[in-house]
């Protein structure tokens, strides 16, 4: 009982990694920025014309432009068409379960502050099954970037009503037209305490990139809603925001004070298709900073002691 059946082992790598010699490491300053070819993996399985292609292309662009190395990005997603994202990116990634990508990504962000954590997903994933996680990740202000590709429908499961489907939208579960009031992602994010809240649309690539980049640079929970058309099940959903389809892409006025929560909330009330840009942005302590502070305060008290010595002190008190 007081001996270990499975004692500690320094584990060697397994499989292919074990059989190949360790590579010569090129210093970061000598590395060339990654090309689109180097950051793309599987060819996306999305329907031709799906808005998600644009978001992916701009993610690649962001990686190239900001010279982020493969190993420094982690792409996390839940389940849905949009959530297939990690397979298309040539970097460490995790395709998790429906609605729970945020808590997973929180675990990565908190335990690995050296990584850029990006989370991608759909409106059902984010606001229905994952609604509560959205609220809590926002309120905790976890350092990560969350891009919700909102198509106002359940794409992967083939046309059911989503929490953002507008009233009257005819889906397979509301053949007479959706009756439940849709939720407003901007309002939800603001009230939940997100510290970066922005809105964009896949048909305006420059704006998508600008928003993603600003989100990445924000220290805290950064949320971007990106309207992304499902050409298969909700064609034309966002024409009203697309000048090429006769719509209007209206930027948030330069006068808007992004630190004013109430003004941001009001902006979110603008009639369809609403405005685009940064609704709200505030510098508040992040979960990562709070935990780091707790750790450094505690570590200061045990400075110079090995882990076993710290534990020994606790055990001595239980004698």
């Amino acid at each position, binding site marked *: 009982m007081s001996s270990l059946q499975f004692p500690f082992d320094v584990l060697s790598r397994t499989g292919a990694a074990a059989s190949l010699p360790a590579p010569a490491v090129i210093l970061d300053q000598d590395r060339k920025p990654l090309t689109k070819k180097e950051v793309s993996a*599987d060819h996306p399985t999305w329907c031709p014309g799906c808005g998600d292609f644009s978001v992916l292309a701009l993610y690649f662009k962001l990686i190239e432009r900001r010279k982020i190395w493969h190993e420094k990005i982690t792409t996390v997603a839940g389940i849905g068409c949009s959530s297939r994202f990690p397979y298309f990116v040539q970097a460490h990634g995790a*395709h998790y379960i429906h609605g729970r990508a945020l808590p997973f990504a929180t675990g990565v962000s908190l335990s690995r502050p050296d990584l850029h954590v990006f989370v991608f997903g759909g409106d059902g994933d984010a606001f229905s099954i994952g609604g*509560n996680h959205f609220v809590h990740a926002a309120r905790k202000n976890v350092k990560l970037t969350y891009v919700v590709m909102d198509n106002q429908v359940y794409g992967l499961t083939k046309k059911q009503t989503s929490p953002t489907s507008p009233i009257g939208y005819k889906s397979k579960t509301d053949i007479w037209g959706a009756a439940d009031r849709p939720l407003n992602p901007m309002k939800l994010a603001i009230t939940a305490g997100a510290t970066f809240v922005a809105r964009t649309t896949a048909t305006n690539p420059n704006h998508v990139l600008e928003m993603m980049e600003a989100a990445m640079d924000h220290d805290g929970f950064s949320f971007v809603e990106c309207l992304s058309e499902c050409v298969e099940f909700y064609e034309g959903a966002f024409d009203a925001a697309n000048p090429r389809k006769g719509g209007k892409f209206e930027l948030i006025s330069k006068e808007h004070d992004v630190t004013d929560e109430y003004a941001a909330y009001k902006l979110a009330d603008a009639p369809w298709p609403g405005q685009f840009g940064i609704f709200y942005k505030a510098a508040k302590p992040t979960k990562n900073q709070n935990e780091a502070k707790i*750790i450094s305060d505690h570590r200061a008290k045990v400075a110079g002691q090995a882990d076993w010595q710290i534990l020994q002190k606790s055990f001595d008190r239980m004698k």
Partner: protein
Amino acid sequence: MSAVVEPPAPSSPSQPRPPAKITEAVIRLAGNSQDGIQAIGGFLARLAGRSEQEVMTFMTIPSTISGGPSIFQVRVGSGEVLTSGDEADLLMAFYQHSYNDHLSSLKPGGIVIYDSDHVTELKPENLEKYRHIGVAISSLTVEAIGGTGRDKGKNVFALGLLAKMFDLNIPKLTRLLEERFASKDASVLTNAMNAFNAGYNYELATAAQLFQFQPGQNVGQAQVVMSGNEALAWGLIAAGVRFGAGYPITPWSDIMELLRRELPKYGGMFIQCEDEIASISMAIGGSYGGRVAVTGSSGPGISLKTEALGWAVMAEMPLIVVDVQRGGPSTGMPTNIEQSDLNIAVFGGHGDSPRVVVAPATVEDCFYTAIEAVNVARKFSVPVIILTDQGIATRIEAFRLPDLQKLVQDISPDLSAVADHRPYDLTAPNGVTRHLAPGTRVASGKYPVVTGLEHDELGHPTGSGKLHTAMTSKRRNKLRRLADKIPLPTVFGSDHGNVLLVSWGSSQGPVQEAVKYAQAEGISVSSVHIKYVNPLPNGLDAIFSRFTHVLVVELNDEGLYGFGGQMTALLRSRYCDPKIVGLTKSDGLTWKIREILERVHTLTTKA
């Protein structure tokens, strides 16, 4: 009190009898939870630990926050203590209801000390069966502390009475009291000492027998005293776990509270989440980050975690899930013991999802099991469920101080670059691949995706039946290799005979004690304990074949078909042996030795 050495007759009737030498005693304190009886129980346990004795406690706490009846039982022994004891030698009853409800837990001829301020109705037939000692505990406490009219401190007064009666080590006890109240206002300690001394000096000698413990067996060994939940949490820290996430639920919460409080000293953190699904997901995210992380729960919280657990199996992510079992299903019996989560631990979730399940037997075992579980999770890239229960979680035991310098592990991830990596490499020996943490450069430029979709070797989705078959076997085969490494448990008692009792988890103690009793009666009974529940060790069938009866003792229901509980079903499905039957119960309490012996008697007299 076993092995009472009768003292010589007193020389003069007016003189108290000299103390009787005893090897062990079972003391039950019965009152209300707000009276601090847990605290005196804790003092007694701690004192025993410091006196190189063995000790085991048992307690009940009311499930309502407003308090209510509560007991604390301590069994202290100079020799081996396997259970907290069926029957008490001494009952300390603070109220009429404590007296009424717990008198029957006394051995015939046992002693009851009751608070005569509250206990007023004594049945004449009880007076014949048990030795009654009335002490006005409440009013004497008020008097000792200085008459504020409140009887706070009567627990310490009672401790004084017990200290006198059992000749406890006063300097050691005083030190414990001082340690306990060190952080409080000085008057608190003064009051406590006054109450303690009043109890100690109360004239009990003529009314009661005095006792003296034989010296403890564990001489020269430093011992630590703690609960199972504490041992498990400390074990995780020793194992190198530095990240965890959870949601409060009884009886799991103590573990998360301890980890939350302690991990920052080691550079780690434990996050309280919005629910159990978020908790397991966050812990998996932590493990993905490179270092085995922990989550845990009890009862309903475990049900919520099953989808994510399936992901960890599929994605082959190391993870620790602690399940402190309580009475179920649904909200069930939150503060009672049951071993009814074996099925969900082994099989819970959809699809074929092999995972490791290991069940510690004692408080000490909780500590070592935690380290082992982490090492198994790392080595086999698999979630490991540590299955404890309410009984082991809350009871206190003394055990030998572990060699921490040797045991404490550093399991930081290896982030050095690799030439290439396939997270689900089918050519890996025994199907064992290892997770490559993000942050690791892969020179081939091909990066792994970890996923819950069936996948190819790089983690990319596949609809191929061939790959699904290959990956399903990979996930299963690595546990077969683990099974090969699990040692066959040794038989307690003779390795062949009439009845073999099978225990798992916290039923080990009562089962082994039942074996000792039965052997003393000349009945051929042995036992075997299963710690690795999934996969099971190989070779149990050979042990079973040497006995006429195999009786699996577990705290759960006999099942729809009545042959036995969840472990019985697992063993039957593995060995197809109808000889394997179960002894089960669902009264929310630990096994009494008597209950096990009764069934052994029916089996042996029938045969």
